[in-house]
């Protein structure tokens, strides 16, 4: 259905001062093709503290193309890349004159226009950037696995809730041959619909918080008896998965039922109005762990549920976040491939209201959680632990906590303690990857 072109993303304000590695590499690559120039420019205006890079936008209605008097600029329908036919280029410079985004250069000495051609799909700048500031976003390799979204539009989840994004992502990957299971919680609103009106196009069950894994067991086993392999997927909150519903989850894991159980962990009871759960982090504010008077949020660390699930030695356990969709996709595919037992995926899912951050910032929060090792991305696959996204230079936990009002009351002492918990937990996982 959709086109989905690969595209370069350049992060803002992270170019190291004086760095020019991307430009040098691009020039080198282009030279090897007999061209002279760089399709990417990094700039430094020390006086203004500006360190940035700029490249062609590969517009869908390129004005450079429209303004070219010799028809030498074209937009490739297959990869979306705007290319210059060098042989036909007059060197008139009109493209440079009309492009508002500085995406095309004119070289007077050569009388040629010059621009980024994305190295025809595998841009070298991505590999050389020392701060990973350039990435190639490849939606096609993700949406290639998408099915039609079984979830209708118009859900009553909060504006911008990443849990909805996550659920749609999961369901698009899972496809139609899926039974979906939910429990009372935020996602209820999505899964259930209201009254006699439904908003999901796959069979779905709204269970009690204590009966999700067992209900899945029943469906899976009944269909197994009929000789049919159906996907049974749960998408429940941490209250259900890690608290009141933990016993049946553990039971299903011990029985190694062939189900995919996903917990979207928003670290609290959010549908009832932000009460603490067993995954509320140390120091985290909730209405039942207030930050006032004698209290400074939750006193104890969160329950490390994915690790507990791995201890059940089920075939597959992973942590995932929607902010790293390729990683998430791989994990979903692995979970779907498991036919002899249970898969558990623990998803960190920020709650705009309960955590206190601005509506569109979910992905920043998620990324900060990963980049600080607060929520390391790892998997346990048939006995082997593996970190699936290595953070080279983990940022201090303050880079995460500063984004969230629920940590606003923390002082150095608590921050240090939280950092200690993060370090300890990451080291545990790290050592597990080394030991197993």
């Amino acid at each position, binding site marked *: *259905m*959709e*086109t*989905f*072109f*690969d*595209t*370069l*993303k*350049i992060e803002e304000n992270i170019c190291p001062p004086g760095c020019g590695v991307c430009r040098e590499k691009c020039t080198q690559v282009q030279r090897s093709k007999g061209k002279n120039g760089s399709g990417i420019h990094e700039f430094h205006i020390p006086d203004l503290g500006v360190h940035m890079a700029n490249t062609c*936008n*590969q*517009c*869908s*209605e*390129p*004005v450079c193309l429209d303004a070219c008097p010799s028809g030498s600029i074209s937009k490739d329908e297959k990869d*979306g890349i705007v290319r210059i036919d060098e042989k036909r280029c007059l060197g008139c410079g009109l493209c440079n004159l009309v492009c508002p*985004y500085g995406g095309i250069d004119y070289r007077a000495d050569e009388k040629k226009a010059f621009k980024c051609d994305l190295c025809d799909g595998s841009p070298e700048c991505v590999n050389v950037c020392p701060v990973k500031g350039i990435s190639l*976003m490849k*939606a*096609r390799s*993700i*949406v290639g696995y998408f099915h039609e*979204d079984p*979830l*209708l*539009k*118009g*859900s*009553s*989840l909060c*504006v*911008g*809730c*990443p849990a*909805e*994004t996550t659920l*749609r*992502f999961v369901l698009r990957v899972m496809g139609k041959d899926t039974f979906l299971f939910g429990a009372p919680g935020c996602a209820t609103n999505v899964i*259930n*619909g*209201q*009254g*006699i*009106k*439904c*908003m*999901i*196009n796959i069979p779905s069950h709204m269970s009690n918080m204590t009966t999700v894994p067992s209900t899945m067991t029943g469906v899976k086993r009944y269909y197994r008896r009929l000789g049919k392999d159906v996907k049974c997927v749960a998408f429940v909150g941490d209250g259900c998965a890690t608290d009141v519903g933990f016993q049946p989850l553990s039971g299903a894991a011990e029985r190694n039922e062939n189900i995919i159980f996903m917990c979207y962990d928003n670290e609290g009871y959010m549908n009832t109005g932000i009460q603490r759960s067993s995954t509320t982090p140390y120091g985290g504010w909730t209405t039942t762990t207030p930050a006032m008077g004698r209290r400074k949020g939750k006193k104890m660390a969160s329950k490390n549920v994915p690790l507990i699930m791995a201890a059940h030695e089920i075939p597959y356990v992973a942590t995932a976040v*929607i902010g790293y*969709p390729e990683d998430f996709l791989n994990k979903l595919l692995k979970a779907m491939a498991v036919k002899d037992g249970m898969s558990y995926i623990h998803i960190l899912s920020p709650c705009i209201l309960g955590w206190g951050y601005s*509506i*569109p*910032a*979910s*992905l920043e929060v998620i990324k900060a959680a990963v980049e600080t090792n607060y929520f390391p991305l790892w998997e346990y696959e048939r006995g082997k632990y593996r970190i699936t996204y290595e953070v080279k230079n983990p940022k201090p936990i303050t880079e995460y906590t500063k984004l969230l009002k629920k940590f606003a009351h923390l002082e150095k002492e608590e921050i240090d303690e939280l950092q200690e918990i993060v370090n300890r937990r990451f080291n545990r996982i790290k050592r597990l990857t080394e030991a197993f």
Partner: protein
Amino acid sequence: MKFMSKFEGPWSTPKEPLDIKTGEWRSQRPVTKREKCRQCGWCFIFCPAGCIEEKAHYFTADLDYCKGCGVCSNVCPAKAIMMIREEI
């Protein structure tokens, strides 16, 4: 006796879809700079409301359902999606 549901129990079917025009919640709306859209589809993946659609050569939100969260604008690598305040 007047009944709303044709079923005996609390069940529902997508044949009777729930159609809440969540667009009414919106205080700001995304407007795609058509010409600048790279068709990368990142907004499509990340739109919580699942309301991003592909037009001829750009992606745009279905404003009947778009809640105006701004995530699409936030993830757009081309900065091609503007958030415009809704006027009442």
